[in-house]
């Protein structure tokens, strides 16, 4: 058990590209922290640097207060679970799990005791004498976990451990990982590209893009107060809607029509010296069918009407997709998000407005519908820097 501190850590590759650019993360003892981002964002590089599998070009890595930059992986006392599980195929489950202890020169009796214990936690007792080749994906995954927990290391590093499992098993294993971490209270660094996993598992999330940390915070904080367009678009599913807007005479003109400008947002924008052209971000759940909004709420938002393109009824909610007239919001962050999601070359992929309406909504496909927007909840972004101008959290905005 120990805390992990990344202090101005850089990773420079021989060709000059930066795999990690001034990464500062303080991971508390026993914390479950998630590194998340699209592929190539530097999250795995960062994890490998903590593991010692990749050299740190600059900066300092401290585990439990001592600098470990120059230490070999075996001297850092941390365990890692790999995406591919990396089980030793010539060893049985028992030997696989006991391997780290054997290397640490434990006595045979102690190894046996510890492996049996871990096998019980992971429900692997009846599989101890099997070889990995004859096991299912979920079982192999648990063996990989077992190999990590047997020697009670200072920290667990997990590199997308669930991404090879099918969807149903993944959800099951997600709760198992969460329970295991709570039970062992070991500092855990978990890498994933799946924002749902990040939201559900972590105490805190680190969002990364091109080697740069975008924001660090609790899942709810990242959802409510994204530091910039990238975090706003990456966290949340379905993701936040972005529409271009213009600030005029204290009002806000967008392709959804003129939107009411709440006082608190106006004050923040004035203080931030916001540009005239901005991007408005609204989460799908902050829309509602105007017909079902209670009267006293109507005035705290704006109403616009548009034709419903596609309507998906989920039973509890209805997802209504509207086609936005006029220009689409443009920014580097959004372009990168689209490229990562693969929607960049899908026609209309980004030009849609996704709204989550209550099940009582009378909206119908192909018909015009009145939609209410909760303007109190909207976020305003600078299209050039991508920064969230309405974030009440300036400290992390530049982190």
């Amino acid at each position: 058990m120990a805390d992990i501190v990344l202090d101005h850590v850089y990773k420079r590759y021989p060709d000059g590209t930066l795999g990690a650019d001034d990464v500062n993360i303080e991971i508390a003892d026993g914390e479950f922290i998630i590194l998340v981002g699209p592929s190539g964002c530097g999250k795995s590089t960062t994890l490998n640097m903590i593991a010692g599998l990749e050299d740190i070009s600059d900066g300092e890595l401290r585990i439990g207060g001592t600098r470990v930059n120059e230490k070999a992986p075996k001297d850092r006392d941390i365990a890692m679970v790999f995406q591919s599980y990396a089980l030793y195929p010539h060893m049985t489950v028992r030997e696989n799990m006991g391997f780290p202890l054997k290397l640490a020169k434990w006595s045979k009796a102690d190894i046996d005791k510890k492996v049996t214990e871990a096998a019980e936690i992971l429900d692997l007792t009846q599989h101890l004498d099997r070889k990995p080749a004859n096991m299912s994906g979920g079982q192999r995954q648990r063996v990989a976990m077992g190999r990590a927990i047997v020697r009670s290391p200072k920290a667990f590093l997990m590199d997308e451990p669930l991404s090879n499992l099918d969807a149903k098993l993944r959800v099951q294993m997600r709760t198992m990982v969460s329970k295991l971490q709570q039970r062992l209270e070991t500092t855990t660094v978990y890498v994933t590209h799946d924002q749902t996993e990040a939201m559900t598992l972590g105490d805190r999330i680190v969002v990364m893009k091109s080697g740069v940390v975008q924001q660090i915070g609790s899942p709810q904080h990242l959802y409510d107060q994204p530091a910039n367009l990238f975090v706003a678009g990456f966290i949340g599913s379905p993701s936040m809607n972005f529409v271009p807007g213009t600030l005029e005479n204290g009002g806000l003109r967008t392709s959804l029509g003129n939107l009411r400008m709440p006082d608190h947002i106006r004050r923040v924008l004035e203080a931030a010296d916001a540009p005239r052209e901005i991007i408005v971000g609204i989460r799908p759940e902050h829309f509602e069918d105007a017909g079902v909004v209670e009267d006293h709420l109507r005035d705290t938002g704006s109403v616009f009407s548009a034709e419903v393109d596609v309507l998906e009824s989920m039973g509890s909610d209805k997802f209504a997709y509207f086609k936005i007239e006029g220009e689409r919001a443009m920014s580097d962050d959004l372009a990168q998000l689209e490229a990562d999601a693969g929607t960049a070359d899908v026609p209309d992929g980004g030009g849609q407005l996704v709204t989550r309406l209550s099940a009582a909504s009378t909206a119908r496909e192909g018909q015009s519908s009145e939609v209410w927007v909760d303007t109190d909840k909207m976020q305003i972004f600078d299209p050039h820097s991508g920064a969230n101008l309405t974030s009440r959290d300036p400290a992390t905005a530049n982190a």
Partner: protein
Amino acid sequence: MTATAPANKKVGWSVINLIVILYALIPVLWIVSLSFKTADTISDGNFIPRSWTWSNYAQIFQIDLFTSALRNSIGIAIISTVIAVVIGTMAAYAIARLDFPGKKALVGVSLLIAMFPQISLVSPLFDIERAVGLFDTWPGLILPYITFALPLAIYTLSAFFREIPWELEKAAKMDGATPLQAFRSVIVPLAAPGVFTTAILVFIFCWNDFLFAVSLTSTSRSQTATVAISQFTGASQFAEPTGSIAAAAVLLTIPIIIFVLFFQRRIVAGLTSGAVKG
């Protein structure tokens, strides 16, 4: 129709298999048959000997040259194989895993050695070995054998090493292994089928060599079995030692068969399956 189509296919394959097996085995059986024929029936052209005899086998063991040659052959082939496989394993691992300057050149040069016509090296080697005192010694044969076996060993083994997921090695490092421990307890066991395959190939190469053996040896001190067979003489000046040669040839294939059978059990296909998501 649907039932006969696969049946026809099966018959077709069986016929082809049979032809291949006969093609490979008939010369071997012919030699075996010759080795059991008596001197006067040896050239009668019968596939199955009309009169059987062990005398050919008894005869070759009365020749001192052959027993010492057998000893030399076994010793030299085993030593060469062990050294070539150990060095080859390490070299192949480096080639498969590391990116170092001159890697391509190294692989190219080793391939060049394998392609070099051996006959062109015989006279220089003869002169060199005479000058440094290696002529007609075990090391005098072991050295060139290792040189020519290494490219083969490196090529076969690096193909096997490339198949092993690199993450296993990373996992071993994370589990607390030194690079040497990771290599010994994770990589080598997984490459075992490759190591044994290579060992068999190298052993056969050394065992069967005639060119170097005949050029770089002169006495029973280091002459190998292949050379000894070539020097068999008949009972008289005019008698062909066909029976003895056949008997010796049969004897020479026995160690190879034992060697292959022994190691074959270790060549378990698909040993790495289950390591990573399959």
